[in-house]
């Protein structure tokens, strides 16, 4: 383990805040677009706002060690509430704002939160629904009072009123000064791909050491700008928008609403940007769709210079030698195509961009790199305070997740599972000693649950799949579903895929089409459809997917170890897998077991001779009502490529 930062270094986020106020009082710390204008707060103003709310919390009766839930979209006041909670010795617990009422009730009960700071009426209503079960909760504090006028206010106050209350400043200072490196900084609930969510306790040491290491790794500057739009309950947002922002002193920008993120991105032009692959995919898809509609000359210009970019761009970015002619073409392309395109995407000023959470398609990754955007990958998890590995500048590839982050040690177990040890390793799972013990051993090594290997020569880590999902097929060959699913998902037409095959003689798959991409394709090809379900079963859509699956099979066949994972039969699902139906986590990871169980009739059909199957599925609408959809799905036989071994014989 690395040593602590020097003794007089700040030991808590409030201490970092005070340091920032002293270092750059007049530099913007937060911005939020409100009423069509970017409103900003300097570090000095931010500290004042945080003090005011912290004092209000004291007056409300917050005691040291209390948990305070934070639920809502990214807004400065909610970030302030988290730091204010720390100032009075409380522990902020950000929760997913789109979580269902029962999920919120579970977390509130589990941590015994006495207070909840929420965004608006939607969250207040959810808490009201489960109020009877959440006994510890005493008071709800809301930001936006719209629609709440008629509510019973005996246990509810607006954020502004709390901040206006005032309180015992000496007591607040005492509590703030008492904070040490070992105090809990934040508690975050894991998304829970399996079972109940667990509360991951992160100490000030975890957060500050990680923020420091990662800020130095990427040379983050106080002048950097980030856009805070990812869920506040996610560890990444806490580290980027709070940890690193506090350590480095850069500015955090909050969008106007959930729907304006892309416009706001363009207006702010962040220099440091994080997005899951999905965001990059969607942007690329929309660019490609719009280029289809462009005039012939523009289309030619785009195609021509994108070819140049793909050849030259990544090499330029990695600082490799490039001929003068290529440099010239690239410069011209930059004026004509890349510059304007990056500007439209809001990515003109990016110095460091990261993607993580899921594998990103090489095509997508290369597209952004080719444009000259320094997009990199990192691998991490909540238990590690994000960082396990990340890619240094100049060593960026789409198929690895990089080298160990500063201070991180890695080891690979015999079964391929990746273990790590670092200053960011979490303290414990709250009230769950059993899980803590099974995840983290006495020496501080943590099991990631992912299987992977370290590449010879480069030292980069490559992840194959979830360790528990890596299994054996009936003939004993290796089964790594995620590996195949990712290859499928790299096609813009395929949104999700679920591959089955553990303990079976062959692999079969469920596929979800991407409505945006396939819908657009249908429009271009004069294919009429009235619903997602109808489009998903259209013969020409199925033919298209046939093609994709065949290509994936051909590519899987190249890999000696995983050649057995080729897809023999598949079907296209009649509904999108959805977190509201429990089929995915809130971070949009497929819950394999749930899907397998829920659609067991379909799985059985895949492993029979049937060519179609009738099914009825229960769905949950956004407002919580349930409905049923019925469909007859056709089952397709895929073209299986000869494997290397067979071909060699």
């Amino acid at each position, binding site marked *: 383990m690395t040593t602590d930062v020097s003794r007089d270094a700040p030991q808590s986020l409030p201490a970092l805040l005070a340091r920032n106020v002293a270092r750059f009082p007049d530099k913007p710390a937060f911005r939020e677009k409100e009423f069509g204008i970017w409103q900003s707060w300097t570090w000095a103003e931010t500290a004042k706002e945080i003090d005011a709310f912290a004092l209000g919390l004291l007056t409300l009766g917050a005691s040291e060690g209390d948990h305070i839930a934070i639920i809502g979209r990214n807004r400065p006041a909610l970030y302030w509430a988290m730091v204010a909670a720390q100032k009075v010795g409380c522990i902020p617990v950000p929760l997913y704002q789109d979580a269902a009422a029962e999920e919120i009730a579970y977390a509130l009960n589990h941590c015994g939160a006495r207070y909840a700071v929420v965004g608006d009426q939607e969250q207040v209503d959810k808490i009201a629904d489960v109020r009877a079960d959440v006994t510890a909760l005493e008071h709800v504090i809301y930001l936006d009072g719209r629609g709440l006028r008629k509510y019973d206010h005996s246990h509810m106050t607006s954020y502004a009123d709390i901040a206006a209350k005032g309180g015992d400043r000496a007591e607040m200072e005492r509590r703030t000064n008492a904070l040490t490196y070992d105090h809990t900084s934040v508690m975050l609930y894991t998304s829970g791909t399996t079972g109940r969510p667990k509360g991951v306790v992160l100490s000030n040491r975890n957060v500050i050491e990680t923020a420091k290491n990662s800020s130095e790794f990427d040379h983050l500057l106080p002048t950097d700008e980030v856009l805070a739009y990812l869920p506040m309950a996610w560890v990444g947002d806490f580290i980027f928008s709070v940890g690193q922002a506090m350590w480095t002193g850069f500015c955090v920008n909050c969008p106007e609403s959930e*729907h304006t993120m892309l416009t706001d991105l363009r207006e702010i032009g962040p220099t440091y940007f994080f997005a899951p692959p999905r965001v990059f995919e969607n942007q690329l898809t929309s660019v490609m769709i719009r280029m289809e509609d462009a005039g012939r000359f523009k289309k030619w210009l785009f195609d021509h210079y994108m070819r140049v970019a793909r050849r030259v761009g990544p090499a330029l970015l990695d600082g490799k030698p490039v001929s003068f002619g290529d440099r010239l073409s690239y410069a011209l392309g930059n004026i004509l195509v890349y510059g304007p395109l990056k500007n439209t995407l809001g990515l003109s000023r990016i110095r460091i961009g990261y993607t993580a959470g899921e594998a990103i398609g090489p095509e997508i990754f290369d597209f952004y790199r080719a444009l000259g955007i320094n997009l990199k990958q990192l691998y991490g998890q909540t238990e590690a305070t994000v960082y396990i590995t990340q890619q240094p500048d100049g060593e960026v590839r789409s198929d690895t997740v990089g080298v160990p982050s500063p201070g991180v040690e890695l080891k690979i177990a015999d079964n391929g599972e990746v273990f790590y040890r670092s200053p960011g390793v979490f303290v414990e799972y709250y009230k769950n000693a059993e899980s803590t013990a099974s995840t983290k051993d006495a020496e501080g090594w943590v099991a990631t649950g992912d299987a992977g290997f370290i590449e010879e020569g480069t030292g980069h880590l490559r992840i194959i799949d979830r360790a528990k999902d890596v299994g054996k097929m009936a003939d004993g060959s290796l089964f790594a579903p995620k590996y195949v699913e990712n290859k499928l998902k790299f096609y813009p037409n395929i949104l999700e895929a679920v591959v089955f095959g553990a303990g079976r003689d062959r692999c079969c798959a469920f596929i979800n089409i991407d409505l945006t991409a396939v819908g657009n394709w249908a429009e271009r090809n004069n294919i009429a459809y009235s619903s997602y379900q109808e489009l998903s079963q259209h013969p020409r859509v199925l033919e298209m997917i046939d093609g994709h699956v065949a290509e994936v099979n051909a590519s899987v066949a190249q890999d000696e170890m995983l050649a057995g994972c080729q897809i023999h039969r598949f079907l296209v699902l009649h509904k999108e897998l959805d977190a509201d139906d429990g089929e995915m986590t809130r971070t949009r990871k497929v819950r394999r077991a749930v899907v397998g169980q829920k659609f067991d009739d379909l799985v059985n059909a895949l492993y029979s001779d049937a060519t179609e199957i009738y099914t009825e599925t229960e769905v949950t609408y956004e407002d919580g009502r349930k409905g049923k959809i019925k469909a007859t799905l056709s089952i397709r036989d895929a073209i299986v490529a000869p494997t290397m071994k067979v071909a060699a014989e």
Partner: protein
Amino acid sequence: MKDMLTPYVTDDGRQIGETLMDMRNITLRFGGVEAIKDISFNIQEGEIRAIIGPNGAGKSSMLNVISGFYNPQEGEVWFRGKKRPPMKPFQVARLGIARTFQNIALFEGMSVLDNVMTGRLNHMNAGLFSQALWKGRAEREETENREAVERVIDFLEIQAIRKTPVGRLPYGLKKRVELARALAAEPKLLLLDEPMAGMNVEEKEDMSRFILDVNDEFGTTIALIEHDMGVVMDLSDRVIVMDYGRKIGDGTPDEVRNNQEVIDAYLGVAHD
């Protein structure tokens, strides 16, 4: 039945005030056709008042009388304690009465922001000269008006389409933009002509929530015409039922629901 002419407090705690608008014995004729026959009713400050009735009952004509588009041949219109002389619609708008239309009447080629800005027309007093030079009063007023408009945009959650031309929006959103424009005028009385017509269930729920929130947040008095009975009964404080130009019911949703004449009108009993 509550005495509707005195101020009262609703079950959910809203203050309903004095009579804002009083329609006395209104009769409206088009040639020989009597569209409205001797109807009297009032609208009290802060309430949501609905006018319902089958097709051709005279609901829209009644709304047009309130908004000054039609001047009735008989009867008196009293607004805020004063008898209102026959007026043109723009004069009525200046009194603080804004409306939306059954078939959307927005400027399709203009952005949402510009459309909503037009709702501020009556709050712009700068002269032609000042406007042309963009100095002094004109500039100051523009800022104030933009601020008011942004509050409405925020309230109705249409930030994402602020700069989008209205012509490109789906129907449900256009309806919301129309509501935004009417609200931007900061009306005393807001007239909504079939705000939910042609909407799907989700859009209807959104619109209902916005109507309630407008009434709740700004205390705006609302008079609305609507076909969807479920919506009307949930939203309104009091309901007027019209049939063939006559008023056949007036009261709280419950009273109206149990009124035999109303039931007959809706179920289509033969008229004599």
